[in-house]
Structures are given as C-alpha cells and as structure tokens.
C-alpha cells in the first residue's frame, strides 16, 4: 500500500520559522528580569587555586552575583562524576570556569569578571595521553576512586586512566599464528571542535521557595541533563525543568551540561532572576568540548586470499580534563575499529586517559569516527600488499545477513555490501584514470563503517487530538537541525491517518513532554518513531471505535486517512473533526500513549551474558571520494564524494540527504582544514579566522545514495542515518590521496606539508617490491 508521507521529501515543519528569522534559539532568549552571565577562566592548564578575591568585582555597577566553586561545590559528569560546576580547589585545563558573574548587562558581567583576582600555584601539566600513562606522571584525579560512577565501567585509581576496557573473542595467538601476513600500523586522529554556528548557551532560573531550577537549553538531551542535574544537586526530578529551544547545531557538543552548569550556579544566587550565559566563539572553541583525539595501534592477521584471522587494537583516548561522555566513547564506539568485517579472533585494549586539555566529549560518530580512520586506512595497506582490489577486499570480508557480531548477535538487515557496490559504481571505481594535468593528480579511494545505536534506550510520547481534529505530538525530541520534528510528524500523520499540516510538534519541556533518552546515536527516527506508532495506533483505534458507534458500523470496516473516515468503497462517511464534535461537544481530546524500548527483543539475543553489546539496529555506510592533489603544493581538493548509507527506510529522503551531505562536508573540513594549534595547553587559534571550517568554496559534488534494507522492527523499516555519516570521509580521502600521489598519511589532519613530506620520503625510499 503506498504511503502518503513516508518516503516523501516533505518540506521541513520548521522551514518557515527558519527562513523568516523567527526561529528562536537559546541565544535569542529574553525573559523578564533577565541577567547576563560571564565566566572567569583558568589561564593555566594545571594549578591549585590558592585564593580567589571577588571584592572588587562585587562592587562593580550592575553586578548582582559573583559565584565561585566554593559557593556551589557540586560535581557532575557522565558515567564518572568527576567535574565541578565551577573549579573548587584546582584547575585542570586552560579555560576551566573558575568564577562567574551575573549582571544587568553582558558588558558589565564581562568587565566584573576581569576584576576577579585569582592566585594559582602552578602544577606540572600533561598534554600527551601517552605521557600521562607514564609511571612517574602526575596523577590528575587522585580522588578518582571516590567519584560517583556507573558500575559497568572499570576505573584505574592512582593513574590517569579514567576507564579501561579489555575485550577479546576467539584465540588471538592462534589467529596470528595462522595468518600469512601480519600488519602492524599506528594511526593518530586529532581533536576537533564541534563549532556549531550557535555557540553554547543556556539560561537558568532558581526558585528558592521550592528549591527548583528551570533551565533553557539547546541540548539534544534535556531529560538526561535533567537527570544529571538532579543527581548532582541531590534534588528530585520534579524539581528540575528543562525547556528546549531550537538548537543552532550541536553535533554532540551539547550532549552534556556546559553553559547550563554555569547558568545554574549563577541562578542559585540571583534571588529568582533568570541568568543567561552565552559562550563567545573563543570560549566555544577552547572551553566547551572537543572530539577525542586517539592513538590507535592496529595489528591484523590476514590470509593471502584476504580473509582475516585476527586483529588486536590498542587505543589510547585523549580525554582532556574531565571525562564527560568519554567512558562510553572508549567502551562502545571503539568497537568499530574491528570494522564491519568477519574476524574470528579479536582483542581490545581501550584506555581513556586524562590530560590537561579541553574536555573530550560526544562528537558525531561517538568514537566510530576515530576507529573507522584506523580500520579503513589499514584496509588499503592490506589490499595493496596482498594485491587485492580495496573494494574486493572489503566485499570479501563484509558482514552479510546471518553473520554473528563480536558478541554473537545475529546481524540482520545488513545493507553494507550494497553501500560498497553502489558507492563504488557512482564514483567510477575501476574506470581508467584521468590523465594528470600539469601538477594536479587525481585519485579515488573508499572507506566503510559500522555503527550501533545505544541499546537499550527508551522513548515515550503522548498524542493528543484536539476537539477540532488538530493534533499535538508531545515528545521529548528537541529539534537539533536534523529535521526531528518533521520526520516524527510524518510518522504520526501516516500512522494516525491525518494531514501532516494538522500536526504540531512543540519543543520539549520536561515538565510536560514524557521521557526521551536523547536525540543522539541516530536513535530518534527508530525509537521515538516506534513510540509514535504505538500512540498513533491507540488514538486511531479510539477514533474508529467512536466513529463506528456514530455510524453504526464495525470499527474494522472503517478507514481513517487524511482526516477522513471512509469504508472500503472509498466514499467519505464523516470527517475526523465531525467525530470529535460528536464525542467531545463541550471540549476535550483523544489521547494516545506510546512507549518503546528494544529491551527484551529477540533481535538482541547473543552469546550468554553478552547481550549488552547488541544493538537493536546496525548502520552501515560507504564513502568513495575523488580527490585532486596538487603535487607541487600538497593542497588537496575533494572533487566528488559518493556516499551510500544503509538507512533501513528513508522516511524523508531529503532529510536523509541533508545528514549525509552535511556529514561529508564536516568530515572533509575536520580532515583537511581543522586543527588545534596548542602551546602549553593553550589553544592559539581561537577564532574562525584561524580555525578553518569548510565554506561553499570547498563543496565537492556529493551524491547521496540511500540503501533501504527494511528493518523488521523499525517504523516503516527505518533505522537511522546521522552518526555514521561522519566516519568514512577521512579514510576515503586518505585512500584517494594514496591513489593520486602514492603516499599514506597516518596522522590526521591531512595537511599540504604532510603530503609533500611524505612524497619526498617515498621518493627517497621507493617501496620494495617482493
């Protein structure tokens, strides 16, 4: 049966607000009596706070509160609660919030913050996680063992290892013994900034009478933040309320308390007046969160025919000063380093290591980006040595339906091979190479990736049909840019049988919208979509029962489509509005409730005790890139990217394309232009002039291909798309550069200087043919 909305490029519900400038983001928020916050930050990477003198600051005109960590000595964090709201007795990175000011104007708050006098005693600082692993390295979190934490993570007290994971399957020693060739390679991926166009911003208001906090945020997970906040402050969840606004981009950076922490600490002391904290671009780049840098050692055993026998991965994650969501990145995301490939024996050592730098947090891909870099760069090294085409090597080892994942979960709806062949075909894999023009050399390369979704997680929703047949979708999924409102409205409209124009999707408000885990991990279409399906079924049944009574017909004989009730013949019998007028003539509504969690699903079955590693769906993607390298300057231009993604089902193909296109550009930008230039823990390039993001001038031709593998439990077959899109671009570009000029870059970012250096090296040492 053809669908009205699902599978169609329905224009975004928030389009009109955004093109008219009416969409309001947290930075645009204005409230009666609002105060503005400014932050004083540590200039040192590691120091004890000896004294803080706020006297002069407090006397400045317009100042209403000056707050330090001693005034608000709570801690919060991700799986390990290691982070203060404001530094209490020491600082662990340049930019750490030490004190904050709330004042009548932002300028007054900034001026007052400059008058706060802090005396520090500098301590030795660690900038390289490998140094931090050293025997004699200073221990940055000596109280690690006292922190509140989630029990499934292993910490290493007395060291700089925040969390550690060891995991293995099969028999590694035997696997390597059976190999015809063993490859040992080291890869490095650098930290990058999320740098959304809307900087981190939040507002908070405190009610002393009820000991309640209200927070306005652009976060992608207001419920999780509410939980973190209530836990940190020791108050109940119903004493914390988060309002979501439109978000000007997050990409994972707004998945934790950042500006919110400062706003909350200030609001506690402003006698009920709300406080807004807006990060400057400098603060955004240097003092919010980053992607984790990682050092990855990959040892892989292969048979001559290209079959894998074993792989060991040793990954050291550069955590920065506080762990945030790092433990999850280092626990789950890291597994993508084994690729979407059948490898009988694997071993993993994953260590999340503290350093005195900006906090590493959730970043699009959640660890899979880093892991894919190493895995897919080495794939091409293996292909070259074994003289197997890189596409063939991947196809040979790629998961197919029926394969077992590392933990024994059966892989289903695996669209991986289709993504490989379609991306390859689109880029012209195997076509004769274009002649070099002058100094320009062209090359083609590819990479693929696998990404799970956090499992199990839960989404709830309420659907309310008003007495005039207008529909309200009450769900806790903020609009972070991915078109969440639109896709969820499509699913609701299709599932209930109403026109999409009658569906409104208000911003989440944790007071009224029911729980949702997060907009993250590419989970929203699937989980919230299923919750909406369930709630839709309930309201639809209620409507048809009512209609049946009114019309004197069996509900089973009736259909509801586009707000019209008909029987099998197609003739309209009555409108939905008509039904409601009869059912609730003096006002009222019809309510449906939906709740979805994959917990207990037979799809998650795995080896005994290993279900925790299962994912309710697996995402696969392949990017194939064509690059042009100027062999005299080393400058790389990405000409074309063919990006094929297994999305399960494209509920809205245009929105899927947006995610794919957007992630290709982000991946290209991260890989070729973005890099933190550090000096003693301080980031020197703290403006967008010197921290380069891709512009329209860097846009390659992007061909997005959606593979629909039709997940059996997903809404209309859907899985997800946003996260994995970030991963394969870097290795695809690097592999294409090898095809163009014969050099391999192991350490990101790829810069013109590295390419020229590598070309020079390989000219001096031509590869030995055996």
């Amino acid at each position: 049966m053809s669908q009205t909305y699902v599978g169609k490029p329905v224009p975004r519900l928030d389009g009109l607000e955004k093109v008219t400038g009416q969409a309001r983001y947290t930075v645009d928020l204005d409230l009666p009596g609002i105060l503005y916050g400014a932050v004083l930050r540590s200039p040192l990477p590691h120091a004890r706070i000896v004294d803080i003198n706020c006297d002069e600051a407090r006397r400045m005109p317009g100042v209403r509160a000056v707050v330090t960590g001693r005034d608000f000595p709570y801690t919060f964090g991700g799986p390990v609660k290691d982070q203060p709201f404001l530094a209490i007795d020491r600082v662990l990175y340049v930019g750490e919030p030490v004190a904050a000011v709330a004042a009548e104007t932002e300028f007054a708050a900034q001026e007052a913050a400059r008058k706060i006098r802090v005396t520090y005693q500098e301590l030795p600082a660690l900038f390289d996680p490998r140094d931090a692993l050293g025997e004699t390295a200073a221990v940055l979190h000596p109280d690690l063992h006292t922190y509140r934490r989630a029990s499934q993570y292993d910490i290493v007290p007395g060291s700089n290892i925040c969390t550690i994971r060891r995991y293995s399957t099969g028999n590694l020693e035997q696997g390597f013994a059976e190999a015809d060739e063993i490859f040992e390679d080291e890869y490095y991926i650098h930290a990058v900034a999320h740098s959304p166009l809307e900087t981190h911003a939040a507002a908070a208001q405190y009610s002393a009478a009820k000991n309640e906090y209200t927070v306005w945020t652009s976060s992608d997970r207001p419920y999780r933040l509410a939980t973190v906040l209530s836990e940190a402050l020791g108050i109940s969840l119903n004493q914390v309320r988060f309002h979501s606004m439109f978000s000007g981009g997050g990409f994972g950076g707004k998945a934790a308390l950042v500006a919110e922490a400062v706003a909350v600490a200030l609001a506690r002391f402003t006698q009920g007046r709300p406080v807004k904290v807006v990060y400057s671009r400098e603060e955004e780049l240097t003092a919010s969160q980053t992607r984790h840098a990682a050092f990855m050692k990959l040892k892989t055993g292969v048979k001559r025919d290209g079959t894998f026998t074993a792989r060991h991965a040793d990954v050291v994650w550069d955590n920065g000063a506080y762990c945030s969501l790092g433990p999850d990145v280092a626990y789950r995301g890291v597994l993508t380093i084994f690729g979407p490939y059948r490898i009988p024996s694997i071993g993993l050592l994953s260590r999340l290591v503290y350093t005195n730098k900006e906090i590493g947090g959730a970043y699009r891909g959640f660890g899979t980006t880093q892991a894919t870099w190493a895995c897919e760069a080495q794939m091409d090294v293996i292909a070259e040595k074994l003289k197997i085409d890189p596409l063939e090597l991947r196809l040979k080892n790629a998961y197919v339906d029926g394969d077992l994942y590392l933990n024994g979960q059966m892989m289903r709806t695996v669209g991986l091979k289709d993504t490989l062949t379609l991306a390859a075909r689109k880029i012209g894999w195997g076509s004769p190479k274009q002649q070099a023009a002058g100094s320009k050399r062209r090359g083609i390369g590819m990479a693929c990736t696998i990404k799970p979704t956090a499992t199990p997680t839960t989404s709830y929703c309420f659907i309310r049909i008003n007495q005039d047949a207008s529909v309200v979708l009450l769900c806790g999924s903020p609009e972070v840019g991915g078109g969440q409102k639109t896709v969820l409205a499509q699913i609701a409209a299709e599932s209930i049988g109403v026109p999409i124009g009658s569906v409104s999707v208000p911003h989440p408000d944790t007071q009224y919208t029911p729980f949702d885990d997060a907009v993250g991990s590419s989970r929203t279409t699937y989980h919230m979509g299923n919750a909406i399906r369930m709630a839709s079924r309930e309201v639809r049944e209620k409507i048809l029962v009512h209609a049946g009574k009114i019309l004197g017909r069996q509900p089973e004989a009736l259909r509801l489509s586009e707000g019209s009730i008909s029987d099998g013949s197609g003739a309209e019998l009555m409108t939905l509005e008509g039904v409601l007028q009869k059912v609730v003539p003096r006002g009222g509504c019809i309510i449906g409730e939906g709740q979805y969690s994959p917990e207990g699903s037979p799809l998650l079955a795995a080896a005994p005790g290993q279900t925790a590693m299962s994912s309710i769906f697996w995402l696969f993607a392949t990017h194939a890139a064509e690059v042009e390298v100027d062999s005299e300057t080393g400058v790389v231009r990405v000409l074309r990217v063919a990006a094929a993604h297994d999305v399960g089902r494209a509920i809205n193909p245009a929105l899927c394309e947006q995610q794919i296109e957007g992630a290709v550009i982000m991946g290209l930008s991260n890989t070729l232009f973005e890099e933190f230039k550090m000096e003693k823990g301080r980031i020197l390039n703290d403006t967008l002039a010197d921290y380069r993001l891709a512009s329209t001038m860097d846009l390659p031709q992007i061909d997005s291909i959606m593979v629909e593998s039709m997940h059996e439990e997903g809404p209309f077959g859907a899985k997800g798309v946003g996260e994995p899109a970030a991963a394969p671009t870097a290795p695809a570009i690097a592999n294409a550069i090898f095809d163009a000029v014969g050099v391999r870059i192991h350490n990101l970012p790829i810069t013109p200087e590295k390419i020229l250096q590598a070309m020079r090296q390989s000219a001096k040492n031509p590869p030995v043919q055996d």
Partner: protein
Amino acid sequence: MNHLPPFAYFAPRSIAEAVAMLTREGVGAYPLAGGTDLLVRGKRGHPFAKTVVNLKLIPELRGIEELPDGIRIGALEVIAALQRSALIARELPVLAEAAERLGSPSIRNMATLGGNIGRASPASDMAPALIVLDATLTVEGPTGRRTLPVESFFRGPGVTVLTPGEVITNFLVPKMPGRSAATYERLGRSQGTECALLGVASLIALAENRLEAKAARIALAAVAPVPMRSKRAEAALLSGPLTEDRLWDAARGAAADCMPITDIRATAAYRREMVEVMTLRGLRRAWEQAVGGRA
C-alpha cells in the same frame, strides 16, 4: 555579545579636520576606515583606540578616476569597488585579481584599500599588486602632504612610516607599461576565504623584440615582516632572453630572498618552498599574457 571597549568618537568632514583631530588627540587616536581590521582588534581585546576618528564622511577620500599620470584610487574606496571597476579591469587587472581574493564578499564590501595598506599586515593581499604596479600613496598630516612609493611605506608588521596625525588619502597607480602583464598568485589550504599562506604578484614588461623583459617586478606577501620585492628574482628575469629556465631562476631567487616565519598556519620551510612554486606559476601566466596581449 562580543563588545567593543568604549572610545571617544569623531566624524570629520574634511581631510584637514581629520588631521587636526588625530593630531590633537595624540597617542591612542586611530583613524577608522572600513573597520574590518581595527574593530576586530577591539573585539579581541588587543590594545585598542581611546579615540576613533571615522574617515567615512570625507568625500575627498573616495573615487576611482583616470588622471594623466595614472589611476587615482581614494583611500576609502572599498575592495569590492576595485573588483567591479571597469577602469581597473581595463588598465590594472592585477589589482582586481588581488581584490577578488581578499576575505569574503562582505569583508570586501567594507574593507578599504587605505585600511588594508595602513594596517601593514605582512600578508596584505593588495600590497604586492600595488608594489609591482609601482604605485605611490599620498599622506596628509599636520606638517603637510607627501607622496611616497607603496613599497617604502612599511617598516614592520603593523608598523608604517606614518607619523602622528597622518592619514593615507589617495593612491596613484601609473598605467602599465606597453607589452606588459601582471598576475597575483595566492596560496591557502582551502579554496575559501582565509588568510593567505603567501601571495606573489609578478609583472613582466616585454622589450620591443618580445624575446626578453625590459622590466620585471616581483612582490611577495606573508613571507617577510613587510610586503617585499624580490631583487634576485627581478635580476634573474632581466639577465637575458625569457625562457622557462629563466623563470625558474627567478622563482628560486624569490625563494632565496624571502624571510618566512613559522606560525600557526604554516612552517617557514613550506612557505619558502611554495614561494618558488607560486612565483613560477605567476611568472608563467604573466609571460603568457604579456606575449598574447596588446602592443
């Protein structure tokens, strides 16, 4: 919101008034042209003006016109005007080429030629082109007016020969010699708007026999404390008939002459290497255009 620090403000209506105000206000008084450099400095918390003297309301500082001895460009003409001027496209195309590469479209609508040169950034995109065109600028100050070559205007990064109370009022760019062409090459890591890693302007004027150069000027940006000419490169080009080898010699000369530093954007070694590469490219294009151009 990223705020500017407070300052005293004047908006003179004539050059004389501007000079008088700057002189009177003394140290800490800065002239404001487009604002794309000065105001950014203020926003970034760098040492900033106590007094701002806004030059935008002075009509004598504007205009692009043909004069007997060259093209006059008012100091307050915006970079976008240089890009769009039919006169410049016809007579001084390398200026338009450089203008096109500066910043973003919005920055080009605001930034001025006088501001760009007055800022004296070693990486100025406009300076090398003005230098190879033998441009001069006129300065007015409390002791009167003087004219000097753009090439001699710079003393160091952000430092010029201007004395207190002086402002740049006009540029005069002579028409190009017969049988000549000039190009501007710029290197960046991306395709978009970013501070140049280096810039090279090259001018070749052919002798009547068209086999050798009768004049050659090569100017570099971002590889020395100031925009600089490469005397070695010019000498190489003038040492005999023009050949690809001679162009190579000139390019190597430019690489030898330059004094790049390592900074957050690139290493000195890379810049030096790229001076050779980009100079060669610029010279090749200039040679080709000069040979194919009008007599």
